[in-house]
């Protein structure tokens, strides 16, 4: 009887939420009422046919199965010996960075203009607000992903609902302490995949930046003896400041940040991203983690600290990650536990795991290394890694890797840093030759002890090959030991372009 009651209640709630509507309804409302503020952006989004998908609040099929007990609500985690809890919901959410109507007026474009779409398209072309290397059409079919205006507007939209203190995550970067949260230190960065044609959008904040910026590319004091801080920023690389004070959160599944400068995936942005080592927190790749308050939650009860994600066959909770049946995936939030992971958190997939991850796009065609952070432990396994573009037919990326071995007992040449640059550089070069790198200097345990210092942490160079922004790539990790007690550790991965790892002018930084 109780279950029926809950089901009815959910249906009522769902009906209510539907009546209230999602982001799509909100934008249509603005258009209908000719409300000033982001009217221009709303009209463009609506013309590009995005309102319907922006209206979806949650996955009701998941709700249904969860309530009917078809999804295990808890499992026992044999690593931390706690119960891990499946998310109660699978919500959808969005973030919009929107140029204001005042901005458009300053550009001579009236958001009320019936010819807005055409004029805006012309403005985009005239101001080179597009990626010259990419393919686009200009045929008025705004709903097509190839359309210029569609590409332009979707670059403003993220499928993650990021509240102001989650645009970037300050947790355990070098020098930072969560007990003194307002004292920022070295830069933190998030790279998100936008809606529509997949492209990267960089969010950045440092002590020096005075706020969160989009696509900021400053100069950093990133030498071996450097501080890691931002030391300067060329005016054309400052990026776009996100107005976190005047955000709009008037609908349940989206948040809007006004911006006062134009945002676009220009050649300039793509080129600068192509000159950058891109570091992705694994959980940052999953909109589901952002939209369901899973990632970096500050609530310390077990339900928020140990989150069980069901296998894909049970329910495909994550769009970009598939998990085999014989394995349990648990997200360890580890808030305030001082773990030496990027943002402190990590994911463990335990069992006869077979995990496939859809990778974010690269900014430009070129040769990239894909690196994978590993924390060696006896609970790890020997894993075969696969890579490619055909999800069902990925090719092995080298021989299986024994993730139980730390960087020291790999005999790869690890030695602790001495402070002598050329000696330390030689060690790094030797490690790279053997396919591994030390951990990152910027990631610490409680702000001080860097992951670079410990020989348990390493970054494996899994792949080095040419990649294209027009392709979608996958990484697959398969346990080749016949064991239910081994786990795959997932923290972060990196895309590093050849111009960074094999620069003829300066070595890759240690941060």
């Amino acid at each position, binding site marked *: 009887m109780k279950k029926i009651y809950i089901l009815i209640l959910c249906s009522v709630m769902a009906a209510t939420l539907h009546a209230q509507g999602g982001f799509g309804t909100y934008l249509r409302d603005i258009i209908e009422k000719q409300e000033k503020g982001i009217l221009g952006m709303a009209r463009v989004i609506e013309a590009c046919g995005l309102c319907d998908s922006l209206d979806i609040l949650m996955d009701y099929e998941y709700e249904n199965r969860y309530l009917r007990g078809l999804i295990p609500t808890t499992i026992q985690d044999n690593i931390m010996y706690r119960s891990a809890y499946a998310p109660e919901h699978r919500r959808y959410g969005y973030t919009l960075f929107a140029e204001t109507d005042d901005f458009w007026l300053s550009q001579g474009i009236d958001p009320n203009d019936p010819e807005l779409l055409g004029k805006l398209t012309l403005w985009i072309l005239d101001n080179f607000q597009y990626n010259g290397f990419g393919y686009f059409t200009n045929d008025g079919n705004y709903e097509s992903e190839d359309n210029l205006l569609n590409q332009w507007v979707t670059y403003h939209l993220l499928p993650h609902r990021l509240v102001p203190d989650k645009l970037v995550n300050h947790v355990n970067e070098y020098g930072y302490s969560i007990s003194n949260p307002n004292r920022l230190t070295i830069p933190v960065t998030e790279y998100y995949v936008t809606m529509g044609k997949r492209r990267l959008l960089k969010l950045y904040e440092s002590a020096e930046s005075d706020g969160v910026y989009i696509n900021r590319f400053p100069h950093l004091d990133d030498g071996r003896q450097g501080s890691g801080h931002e030391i300067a920023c060329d005016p054309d690389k400052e990026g776009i400041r996100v107005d976190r004070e005047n955000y709009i959160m008037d609908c349940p599944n989206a948040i809007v940040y006004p911006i006062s400068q134009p945002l676009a995936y220009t050649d300039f942005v793509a080129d600068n991203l192509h000159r950058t080592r891109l570091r992705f927190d694994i959980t940052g790749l999953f909109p589901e983690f952002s939209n369901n308050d899973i990632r970096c939650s500050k609530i310390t009860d077990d339900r928020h600290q140990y989150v069980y994600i069901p296998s894909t066959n049970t329910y495909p909770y994550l769009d970009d990650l598939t998990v085999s049946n*014989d394995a349990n995936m648990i997200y360890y939030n580890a808030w305030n536990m001082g773990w030496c992971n990027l943002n402190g958190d990590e994911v463990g997939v335990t069992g*006869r795991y*077979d995990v496939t991850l859809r990778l974010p796009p690269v900014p430009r065609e070129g040769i990239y290394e894909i690196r994978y952070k590993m924390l060696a432990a006896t609970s790890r396994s*020997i894993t*075969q890694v696969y890579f490619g573009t055909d999800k*069902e*037919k990925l*090719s*092995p990326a*080298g*021989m*299986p890797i*024994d993730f139980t071995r730390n960087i020291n007992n*790999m*005999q*790869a*040449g*690890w*030695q602790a840093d*001495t402070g*002598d*640059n*050329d*000696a330390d*550089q*030689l*060690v790094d*070069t*030797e*490690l790279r*030759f*053997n396919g591994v790198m030390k951990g990152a200097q910027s990631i610490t345990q409680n702000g001080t002890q860097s992951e670079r210092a410990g020989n348990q942490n390493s970054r494996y160079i899994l792949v080095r090959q040419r990649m294209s922004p027009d392709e979608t790539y996958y990484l697959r990790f*398969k*346990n*080749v*030991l*016949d064991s239910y007690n081994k786990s795959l550790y997932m923290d972060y991965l990196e895309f590093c372009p050849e111009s960074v790892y094999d*620069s*003829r*002018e*300066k*070595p890759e930084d240690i941060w």
Partner: protein
Amino acid sequence: MKHTKILALATLLIGMVAEGQAQVFQIIQKDGRAPKFQAAAVDSLSHNNAEGLTTIHLKDGKKETFQKAATDSIVWYDPTNSILGTLRQNAGYTLFLRLVQESEWWTDMLNGATDLTVFAADDNAWQRFFAENAKLPSPNPWRTATSYEALTADQKRALLYTAITAGSINRADLIRTKSLAAGLEALEHLSGSEVPMHYNPAEKWYWERFHEANGGKGIWLASDSSFRYTSFFTPEKLKTFNVTETDLSIIFPAKAPQMANGVDILQQDIPATNGTIQDVASPLVPLQSMADVIRTNGKTNIFSHILDRFSAPFYSPVLTESYKKIHPEFTDSIFTKRYFSYNNYSLKGGYLGGNSWNVPLFEPGPWGTYQSYNPYKDNSDYARGLRFDPGWAGYYYEVAPEKDMAAMFVPSDEALWHYFTKGAGQALILTYYANIGTADEIPYTAPTNYDELYRQIDCIPVSTMASILVNNNMMRSFTGSVPSKWGKLFDDAMEPLFDDADEALGQLDTCLLANNGMVYVMNHINMPADFRSVTAPAFASKTNLIMKSAIYDDYMGLNYYTYLKAPQQDITFFLPSDSALFYYYDPISMKSRTPRAIEFYFAGGSFPVKLRFRNYYCPYNTSGPDDPDLGTIGNVVPGANVYTNDEVTDRLKDILYNHTIVNDGTQDIHSRNEYFRTFGGDVVKVVRDASGRIIGAKGGFQMENERLGIANDTPGVTECKVIRSYESLSNGQTYALAAPLVPTWRSLYSLMTNDQDQAWYGKEGYGGETPYSEFYKLCTADEYETEIIGCGLVDGSLPRTQRESALKKYKIFTSDKGLDYNFSLLSGNTPYTAFIPTNEAVRKATSQGLPTWDDIYKDYHSHASGDQLNSYEDSIRIAEKIMMLTNFVKAHFCFGMAIADQEPFRREYTSLAYDRNYELFPKLIVDSKGGQEMTVTDWNGNTVNVTASKNVFVRDYTCNSSPISVAMKGIQMNAHRSGVVHLIDGVLGFTGN
């Protein structure tokens, strides 16, 4: 057809008769009787209310009386539109009707009230059926059914029983329906020569007493006594199971999307008052079981023979008694053919309890009785188990039998023939039939016919065959293993069943539907990776027990099999046999008190590999290159059988890593090259014959002995001969060797100085000038610590450990528990190349301003008071000289091995020199036009040539304890570093003053 409960029997009957609502009615009694009456034949009704009786008076004078209390219901219907009636109304079903009407009982059934589904073929379909039967292969029991008249009584019964099934078949989640056929329709007599047999004398032959060789007269055999199922596929049903229309089109090409038993259903669900008619394109024959399909289709005889080794005859009193009722003249016994399995009729039927492996020692008899019958040899028969009994018609696993069935991937005869005669399976034959390498070895010749092949493959233990078949080819679920899901199928070892599902589809020969599953005949072998990868010759072997143990056993702590079984790789594995491992020349023992050859031997037990030692005569315990003992093995080392297990694992690990080559695109064993990097970072040189086949291989030890001019026949001293090649393995090739590849003992120091350390020990013939002498003199920073510290490059006040660490970057050689002095610019097991300038080239460079240590020493001490330099400027100058010299030396070393070989290449290598301006290590470009010519160009654009003295391989060791001049007990290799040395005719990274 309508049912009704009895409220007032008489009233109801009168009403029905009066109104003519029913032409026929049946009065269903609680005791099971159900007499029926034509309404038109009823004359009158009478009733006795007091006794609750009703009597029906028929016009022919008969009457029947019924008690209301004893009556369950009344059923009435119009037989005109019954199944039989409907068929009669449609022209062209005469043969089917004839079949039905031969049985009065069946005539009544198809006319009656019971809800049925009937699969009926028209006359044209029957004629086609008869014509096709004439073309069937001879083992097929339907071969003789070439006309209606030629049908035997049993065949007619089988056709009829299969065509009719109780109830509706239209539930979306059912793909099979139980027919009324059970067991006897496939009864056949196997003659004394047709009875299954095998050639392995160590196994019980369960069919022995029926074989003519033992006076047997054959056996009456029904494959199974359970009910047959008719499969019924429609796109809607299969969609429920995610079986796609593409799957159906692959399994049944050119077929209609709906079918029963593989036969097209031309028209579905023709209604009748007592069920439905499915118009089919051919009479339905009872399908055989998968075991029988495999036996009779003509393409899978070898696999059928292998399956038969898991079978035994079981007496069936149920079938025997049933048959005797139909054929009273029959006096023999009928058996069923069962397969030892983990899922079978007896287990699911509840005749077994506890463990599932044992097939019962009895056969269920009529009405719950049992007849004792024990065909087993002993309890170990459980080890022979298949995943399920492929002869069990009523197969099911986790869901009801109507919802799924099994599947088997069966290699064709062609595929299996190739596997056992040319592929990885040959290793099994050589091991178990030819006993290769053992005292029982017999000559092996390839078979020329199936019988010869059977004699060979029957020597393979049935438990080995079980793991091949169980793990890989028997799928518990048909719906879970249709072609669209082949990419997601895994065996028990979590290996993908198919490396490439599309490729596997291309190897699908035929799909054969059985009553209990689908047989996919494949032109491909699905064997566990253990049997088809480069580990196969070790895994299935009696003479490679040591390497098998090293690869698989837990005590090694390596799980090395995961590397050797890695799919979609191209691996070359050199496999030293057990006898080959008598000749492991322990490289780190060469400068010990007892240079030795280790004999590994397999003793079994929890730590199965043991060691013995014999003296080995190397350059350091003989009188010189002319000593006749050089390169030979002497006596057993006395008192030396004391060693630790860690030494065993240490050497075995080194052997494994250095016998594995990964052809990863940067190198390819199939090229013309001779040198290949091993998985452990060392180098192997292959020896090819005129046609390019690999006939031998050399490790660093063998190459060094060759370089020293040692020439004798002792196995493994200068070459390891290939004794057998396995070149068609799924992930590469394996070469069995007569001796193991051994890395060199020769260090870079040893090479450059001609073992100067031996000269210090007073031995003659060592030290002195070598082609590397001048460059070596530039590498002696370890003798100039005073100067390095004195000029301020290293802070002399540091604690010793830190000071040593800081000095390390200037030192090229250090003492680090190796055989002499280790190359110390690198820390890990990182291979490197040393481009060493000739003495002349070095002298030229020094004349152009390159400082030497001698210069530095003189400069320092002519400007110092004691060890203290006089001025800051002196410090700067000395420091500059030292840094320049150090960087010059380092410029001649690079990461990775650049080997002069046959194939041309051009590659960048990162040198160990350091550019302080850019904080980078600049690159050297190595260019080879092939044929072992090579040049090196530095970052200044300066090009030098590699001279004739090239490709000398060196290896430094760091042991847990120094192996110099000591007894070798307990000494292991903690680390090693391999390099290749080339002499060049110029210098690198130096542009003069």
